């Protein structure tokens, strides 16, 4: 790890919405544009104190996962994006989660501006729902069917080929 000059921070403390603290080193935190922006701002001011960044929208469960992702990707930060090992890891990482967790992770990635994780989650969810039935989709995303039976039948009849 490169040694940091005296005026730059080496780690930050991130606080989850349920008030747990996580000490994160700078290279890992920089995977999130939100955290990176906070660090850059503090460094510009010349602060040497460890800074605390509160994330009011992210629970510790989810934050742990985001940081796990950031840590892995920080290790590969100098490689090109097409590293097969990393891609394999990404897939195995997301495979473990249910939709509720995936949704929360997607929102956290969006909030923390971790673009690669956001893309990864969106693509993963898209790939896993593409062959599901309408009924399964409603269950997964907890969506209430607000069509009348007639309206629903009309859409189905118009596009019968897509339901085969």
């Amino acid at each position, binding site marked *: 790890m490169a040694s940091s000059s005296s005026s730059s921070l080496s780690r930050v403390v991130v606080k989850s919405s349920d008030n747990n603290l996580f000490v994160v080193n700078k290279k890992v935190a920089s995977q999130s544009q939100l955290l990176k922006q906070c660090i850059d701002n503090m460094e510009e001011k010349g602060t040497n104190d460890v800074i605390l960044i509160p994330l009011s929208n992210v629970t510790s*469960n989810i934050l742990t996962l985001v940081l796990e992702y950031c840590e892995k990707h920080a290790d590969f930060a100098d490689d090109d994006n097409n590293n097969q090992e990393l891609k394999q890891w990404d897939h195995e990482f997301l495979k*473990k*989660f*249910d*939709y*509720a*967790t995936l*949704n*929360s992770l*997607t*929102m956290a990635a*969006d909030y923390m501006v971790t673009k690669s994780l*956001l893309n990864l989650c*969106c*693509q993963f*969810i*898209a*790939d896993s*729902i*593409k*062959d599901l*039935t*309408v009924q399964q*989709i*409603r269950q*997964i*995303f*907890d*969506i*209430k*069917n*607000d*069509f009348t039976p007639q309206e*629903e039948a009309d*859409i*189905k009849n118009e*596009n019968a*080929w*897509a*339901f085969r």
Partner: protein
Amino acid sequence: MVTKNRVVDLPEELMREILSRVSVKSLIRFKCVSKSWCNLINSKDFVELQLNKSKERYENEIGTFIILGATSLYSVDLNSPHHRSQIIELYVPKEIEALYPSSEYCCFALYNPATRAFNKSPKLENKMSQKEYNSRSSDFVYDCVADDYKVFDFVRRGLSKLVEETRVYSLKESSWKAISNPPLRRVRSHRSVVANNFLHFIGYSDDSRSHVIIRLDVSTQRYDIMSLPFDFEDICGGLAWLRGKLHVITYTIKQPSYGLEIWVFEYGVEETWT
């Protein structure tokens, strides 16, 4: 991991991101999920987002061929290693099958094989005498200025090379409109090429001795003439649009100039022939 977590509602913006990565066929099925999903999937912004996402994804792939058979359409996925097994017969709406041309009018159907939506143009009356033999050629173009799809229909009387009736159909306005005819005679045998929002076709110059390219601005529907940097009796090859450049391909089998020539025109840069 806890499996009974309460599902958090994803904000619409993120749902859009996810759904834009799903295929058109699945999206059409998902219109049934709820009214808000249906509205989202039908919205113009979403359609554009989805299109851009799939362009990114399939950038390096060859694509799909649509083949027009005698009575139906077939699609062939060229990315599949076994082309033969990937030939799919597309569903063609009954209304299109019923569109047989008659001597009094003709009708165009625009068909989107991805969504299987189709649009039928209003009848286009043939104004010229029905007893005469007329020949028509049509071009389907996308007008990127008006964000509209258009069909240009050129009708010639008999075997004449002069177009005597030109009309344009706009998908947005869903109507036909007469526009002025090409200023010069058109070479019949060559296909037209759409590029840079212009429709290009090869025509004869005033004195019929040489060839020019007639350009039709698909947005303003005005013509102009591009002269060619060479002069010879016939253009055998025709026009092509390759790698962002307009190509005129010519060859002659007459001595002594026997050979193949390709002239390239690049829009935007210096607008000269090389």
